[in-house]
């Protein structure tokens, strides 16, 4: 990890107020992201990964809120920033690409208007300058300039998502958060989008937080990986190493749930049971009820996120043992 942390999340707790109480969808998450780095966050549905992304952008709405913790962006705490100041940060410092390529664009505004309104909101530029910028960004994502006049319904799903990426990068943000940006797309388009993001990152030098439930997508392009379970990070490490040698039983289970894009064909596994109810999470390790290697202590003692060295963190007392044993 780079010494110069651009984003530092410390003990973040965020979630949703319900009639039965506050659901801690993100329950004490901490991580650091260096400049130009690519962090993948993976986990199953409901593990809090999207809430984490929305919390960083301060986009939690209605009954959702940040309960505690700090989100230090270039040393400034976003969690307590005034709404107006935060609005100024959005898109200039950090931009976001959303899961639903199909519905993320306003159907009654042209692509050009939606690209340039972000520019006009944050920079004092003339109309032609904004349009030039929009054309340049579209070119970056391989879309012809005459598409500026198009409306969202005239574009394919893959094109919409590329327009969204162009839109996210138009103000050259330092951080790009991508919340399952390829989930709604077919596999071939997924691949091209991910390669595009990787190229652009190398060209423009922004950092990426890439959220997905599909680990196999992340291995090849992310620098670091964080695995989330039930609102917490259960394992963190360098992408390749973590993938080759997972320490946490949950990471292992997650990997067995997806086919790799390359490599030998193996029998698929899965994880039995369901993610826990976050209103009343199980005592001890939250994964214990589903863990194939759970021991008696696991349901009593809450595991810490231990540093195993080499930048690897693991929230399982068994971590490190497996590493020496070299399973998988």
């Amino acid at each position, binding site marked *: 990890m780079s010494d110069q942390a651009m984003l530092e999340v410390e003990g973040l707790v965020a979630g949703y107020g319900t009639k039965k109480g506050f659901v801690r969808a993100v329950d004490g998450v901490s991580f650091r992201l260096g400049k130009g780095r690519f962090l993948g966050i993976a986990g199953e549905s409901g593990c809090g990964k999207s809430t984490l992304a929305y919390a960083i*952008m301060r*986009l939690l*709405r209605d009954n959702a809120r940040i309960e505690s913790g700090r989100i230090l962006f270039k040393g400034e705490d976003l969690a307590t920033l005034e709404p107006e100041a935060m*609005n*100024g*940060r*959005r*898109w*200039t410092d950090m*931009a*976001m690409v*959303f899961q*639903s390529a199909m*519905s*993320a*664009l*306003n*159907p*009654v*505004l*042209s692509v050009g208007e939606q690209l340039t*309104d*972000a520019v006009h*909101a*944050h920079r004092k530029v003339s109309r032609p300058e904004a349009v030039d910028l929009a054309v340049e960004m579209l070119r970056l994502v391989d879309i012809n300039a005459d598409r500026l006049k198009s*409306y969202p*319904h*005239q574009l394919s799903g893959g094109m919409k998502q590329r327009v*969204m990426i162009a*839109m996210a990068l138009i103000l050259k943000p330092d951080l790009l958060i991508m919340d399952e940006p390829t989930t709604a797309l077919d596999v071939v388009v997924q691949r091209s989008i991910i390669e595009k993001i990787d190229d652009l990152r190398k060209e423009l030098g922004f950092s990426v937080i890439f959220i997905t439930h599909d680990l196999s997508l992340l291995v090849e392009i992310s620098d670091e990986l964080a695995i989330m379970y039930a609102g917490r990070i259960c394992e963190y490490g360098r992408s390749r190493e973590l993938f080759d040698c997972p320490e946490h039983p949950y990471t292992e289970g997650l990997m067995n749930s997806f086919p790799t894009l390359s490599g030998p064909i193996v029998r698929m596994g899965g994880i039995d049971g369901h993610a826990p109810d976050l209103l009343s999470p199980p005592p001890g390790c939250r994964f214990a009820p589903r863990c194939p290697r759970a021991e008696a202590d696991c349901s009593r003692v809450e595991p810490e996120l231990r540093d195993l060295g080499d930048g690897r963190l693991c929230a399982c007392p068994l971590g490190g043992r497996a590493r020496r044993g070299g399973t998988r």
Partner: protein
Amino acid sequence: MLLFTLFVALSLNFFLPRLMPGDPARALLAKMDAIQPEQLESIRAAFGLDTKDPLALQYWHYLANTFSGNLGVSFSRFPMPVAQVMRIAVPWTLGLMGLCTIISFILGTLIGVFAAWRRETKLASFSVGFFSFVRSFPYFWLGLVFVYFFSFRLRVFPIGGAYSVDATRGSGSWWLSVLRHGALPALTICVTSMGAWMLTMRNNMINVLAEDYITVALAKGLPLRRIKSLYAAKNAILPSVTGFAMSLGFVVGGGLVTEMVFSYPGVGYMLFQAVNAKDYPLMQAIFLFIATAVLIANFLADIAIMFLDPRVRDGAK
């Protein structure tokens, strides 16, 4: 398509009154005393009711006359031509009903936008409750209540009519009397119809606010005014526009009961009188007018939607 629909409307307009029982000449004469049989015949001749032409030929004449602007002579206001009767009534209805429909649509929609955008505020919740309550009043009932209190009891507004007969037409005091006469019917219409626009817009808007593109707009850090108008309201208003055009079309005849309550000399009141007097030419002219108005309003709605929604624009190409 528009012309075909108009033709169908015209034809129905011709045949339907002829299916009604009763003899217009006798109905007319029943109002007068001591009429001789020969006079009855001459009145029939004057009204063109003595024709021996087959129905098909009458139909042809009707179509030809209608297209040349000849709507016939009113039975009940003989010998005034129908076109002239209409010219007197239509401005009152357009002025009162048309203006009220437009005002209540604009106000209702704006309040709906506010009630959705600031839905956590007390004022927004109150406006929802208030308009749901007010909307459920039957408008003629509200009209009667207003007439009773403001005209009969408090005597602050005239009890009926559209203008003061004492003032010279077109003078300042005449216009003032027009406003005073129009105030109660206008209030009735606006109060009872605004609620529907407000609640429709609020519901549409709340649905639209949950859309992903609103979250994207927020993430982009756009000015909230732009998000409210171009991202939320522009999408939310689309279903309302069609409804608005429909109601504009029905403005022409839809004010019937209101105009009756306030004895307002508009098209609705006149239709009521025409039906009572079996004044076929006038009835036909009014129905024709309503049908045409609905058609034109729908046509305008299609154009407006095409202007607002690029998806419809593409479908029309």
